């Protein structure tokens, strides 16, 4: 939702909240009076902070009501399911309890929350900001979703053990401004650390799932993704981006160098594109002020692999990315000097090659751009060869990619069921087998999004469709 849409939405919700709050009568067992209706400015501030904190991304299941929870989050320890933070889930919490959750990572009964909920970053929030977020969440329509949240295997299902994790990795806030830095730097630090929690993805984590000390922003590995280096390293980080590049990227999801997709595409769409220009400036000031990560030592790739990779590139990639790797900025991303391409960990680009990648259309850039999947067409050897080739051409230099790495990413690519219910191996961007051909009774509102072409719900003027007919033709 656009910022304007968000503002309009909150206005409606605030009114609803005023009515709902009045109706929320505590029962006779409680001694407190009915809570006062929230002030509109507080709720508006809370809406903005909620967008900055990108709570929606984790607290919304695919196709589910926003903030109603139920999203399974994969961690190395198992799958954690997010909570319902609409009034249907936390409606009877107090502001104190909400602050404790953000600040100390415990719920209203004092039970530990898992740090998949990044409270080790949200702990930096001020009490006032916590109250504003809570006030906004209270205005959301209540969902009765109660996901089963205890799905971790033994011993991780014992929440008590989180206490030990906290001893190592939780440094309770709130955020302490650095007196030696500008107000803008400190605002940027607050946005990045307390709200954006960028390090939760972009900093390497150790085997306990905590951030590695001394490696802030040097990139983070996840199943099927590698969130890139954000230090000023000229090759792997943001060093070749101007300040304006960085701000444009956060605001629109694209710049002359790169386009946000996947997880970061969601971050831009739900979070950073809603921030004010001043806040984006502040983030740029903070993010760029740190030492560059050390240069990655690169072993020269084998000439035979480069030749094989080049042949594949010419046939399969050059139509969009061009023979000189320059692509079309803000359309087909340039590969020359592409930082994401040159990470020491090639997981992300292997994912792009094998599973394809779609950028999220926006009102200002509405074209639904996607790179198709090649996993069905190329073997692991071939994927590795072309990945090595692009990582080491046109001045790029990055460690060669092995077939084993390509195989590992192939296994990690899991997509939900396609329109006919059959699981999709490579997602909607792959070779159009029956599950990816056009689906019946599609909804116009889905165009450009992840759900493009999905079947309209029953009752939208049509009966059960002829799912995934092999020719994409009407029945009959």
């Amino acid at each position, binding site marked *: 939702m656009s910022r304007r849409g968000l503002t309009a939405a909150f206005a409606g919700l605030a009114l609803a909240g005023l009515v709902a709050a009045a109706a929320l009568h505590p029962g006779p067992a409680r001694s407190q009076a009915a809570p006062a209706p929230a002030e509109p400015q507080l709720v508006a501030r809370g809406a903005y902070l909620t967008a900055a904190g990108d709570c929606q991304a984790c607290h919304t299941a695919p196709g589910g009501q926003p903030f109603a929870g139920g999203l399974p989050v994969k961690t190395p320890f198992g799958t954690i399911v997010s909570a319902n933070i609409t009034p249907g889930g936390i409606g009877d919490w107090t502001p104190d309890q909400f602050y404790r959750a953000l600040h100390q990572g415990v719920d209203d009964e004092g039970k530990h929350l898992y740090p998949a909920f990044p409270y080790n970053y949200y702990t930096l929030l001020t009490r006032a900001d916590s109250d504003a977020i809570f006030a906004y969440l209270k205005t959301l329509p209540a969902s009765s979703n109660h996901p089963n949240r205890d799905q971790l295997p033994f011993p991780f299902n014992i929440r008590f053990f989180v206490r030990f994790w906290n001893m190592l990795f939780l440094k309770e806030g709130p955020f302490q401004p650095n007196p030696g830095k500008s107000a803008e730097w400190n605002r940027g630090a607050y946005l990045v650390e307390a709200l954006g929690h960028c390090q939760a993805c972009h900093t390497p984590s150790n085997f306990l799932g905590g951030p590695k000390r001394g490696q802030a922003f040097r990139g983070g590995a996840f199943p099927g993704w590698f969130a890139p280096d954000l230090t000023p390293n000229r090759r792997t980080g943001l060093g070749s981006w101007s300040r304006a590049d960085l701000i444009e990227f956060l605001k629109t999801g694209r710049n002359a160098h790169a386009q946000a997709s996947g997880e970061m595409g969601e971050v831009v769409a739900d979070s950073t594109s809603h921030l004010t220009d001043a806040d984006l400036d502040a983030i740029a000031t903070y993010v760029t002020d740190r030492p560059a990560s050390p240069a990655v030592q690169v072993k020269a790739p084998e000439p035979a692999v480069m030749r094989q990779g080049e042949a594949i590139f010419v046939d399969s990639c050059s139509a969009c990315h061009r023979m000189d790797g320059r692509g079309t900025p803000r359309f087909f991303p340039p590969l020359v000097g592409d930082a994401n391409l040159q990470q020491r960990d090639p997981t992300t680009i292997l994912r792009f090659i094998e599973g394809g990648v779609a950028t999220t*259309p926006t009102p200002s850039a509405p074209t639904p751009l996607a790179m198709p999947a090649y996993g069905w067409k190329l073997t692991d050897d071939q994927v590795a060869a072309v990945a090595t080739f692009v990582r080491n051409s046109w001045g790029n230099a990055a460690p060669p990619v092995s077939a084993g790495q390509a195989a590992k990413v192939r296994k990690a690519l899991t997509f939900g069921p396609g329109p006919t219910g059959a699981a999709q191996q490579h997602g909607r961007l792959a070779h159009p087998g029956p599950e990816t051909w056009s689906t019946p*009774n599609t909804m116009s509102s889905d165009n450009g999004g992840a759900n493009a072409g999905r079947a309209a719900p029953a009752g939208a003027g049509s009966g059960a*469709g002829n799912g995934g007919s092999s020719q994409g033709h009407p029945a009959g």
Partner: protein
Amino acid sequence: MATRLPNVDVLVVGFGWTGAIVAQELTEAGLNVLALERGTWRDTPIDFAPTFDQDELRYYWRHELFEPLAHETLTIRNDASQTALPMRRLGSFLPGINVGGAGVHWNGQIWRFLPSDFVARTHNVSRYGKAAVPDDMTIQDWGVTYQELEPHYDTFEYICGASGKAGNLKGQIQAGGNPFEGPRSREYPNPPMAMSYPPTLFAGAATQLGHKPFPHPAANMSRPYTNPLGVQLGACTYCGFCEKFGCGNYSKSSAQTTILPVLMRKPNFTLKTESEVVKLNLDSTGKRVVSATYVDASGQEFEQPADLVVLCAYILHNVRLLLLSGIGKPYDPQTGQGVIGKNYAYQITSSVNVFFDDKILNPFIGAGAHGMILDEWNGDNFDHSGKGFIGGGYVGVVQTGARPIETHPTPEGTPKWGSGFKQAVAKYYLRAMSIATHGAVMSHRGNYLDLDPTYRDVYGRPLLRMTFDFTDNEHRMSDYITDRAAEVARAMNPASIKVNYRKGSWDVVPYQTTHNTGGAMMGSDPKSSAVNRYLQSWDVPNLFIMGSSAFPQNPGYNPTGTVAALAYWSAQAIRETYLKAPGPLVQA
């Protein structure tokens, strides 16, 4: 029993090029627009991805993108002495289906008609006398002028990102462009495409003969382009898989690549796919369309009411729906009365194959509208006195590619099988090219569309029947311009040429063009036209009918540019005049 649905402001029937144009324009005016498409959703990254898109067998030969004849076809005959039979395999023309329609699989040959084309009857009679237009050549003036359409041609060219060189800027002839074209207000949005060897050779020879070749106007991007709606297109890669294929590089203009990304986000626009309109329902006066009946994929019937209906279902389905719904007076070729189905026309084409021993042409480098053209013998660009025909066509080399199954030209005298054939195919694949002619078809009282008396579709409705043949006018004209093409071919100093005149009756088997026109023609007089100059039905003022069904006859250029310009012109009339005072826009 059909389920009745809530009313909408505008119902768009069919969602190809004109459906997208009209829906975009009318949603901009704030109306709630619903489009019903009998096919399915398709979009560039999913359905035309370059990982599988250049598959000649699947798309060119097995017709995956075209209308499935098992669902609906038409019956065809050359004249009334024959019994029309169902066309059971696509050949001469390739109607589209699914979102984007034929606009997905066209070449991107984007033309304007000549100013004189819009007044074909008046112009030819005044220049050559009444005898130049025989009684049974039923051509008519359009009721709209080139000047009136010029801004809308311009709009479409900029929406598409057309690549070309203006030949006439506000009356000033420009070097390198088409010196015969009507005046245009500004340059093309993109420069011409880069020319490969075959069109370059042709242009060189043509210039030596004193002609004025110019780049074919192309809805293939010569460079990355962002159109006025903010939609982005990529640069064409000259992959040679344009016509009959979708484009995976976002570099061929289509509804998907130019309009849909913006239109589909609008809250006041809804698209329902797999919803086939089977009838338009009139009120008891017969002067108002109140709803459309449509059938969904499960066979359920629905009645969709609307205040305004725009028929965008392609000429063949437009005319058929009008006949099935009892709108307008069906044409009777015996009496000459009636208009629905009248003046069906097509295109007459021919070619000259040119063979070289000493040149490698790399014919596989191609794009849909990548070529060099001569317009000297189109329209009334030359003196027809004493020639026995009117009209003309363009001549040129459009190198769309050389797909391997399709492309095996051999010189005159080559054996048709065996080792001699194989040697010639192997040698000449890289050394042969073709000059094409693309000619007008004048309307004739015996060429028309009506409902078949025998054959029916899956719903029990009569199929459309097409009665069409070329007349002497077309053959004389086509032979004349084929001879002109052969002259240029000889001037290229080839090893040999092969002149392929279009002979005999129109044959539905070989592919020619998908330029079907007429059947619901526009005009100034309700007695001799189906729609007025704004494409509004004379009989049912809240019905507008888009598409080449509006053409009274078919000039010597591809129709899509004019189809789109008329759609924009009509949409403007709806927005600026009709919506303020619904009713007839032209007093009969």
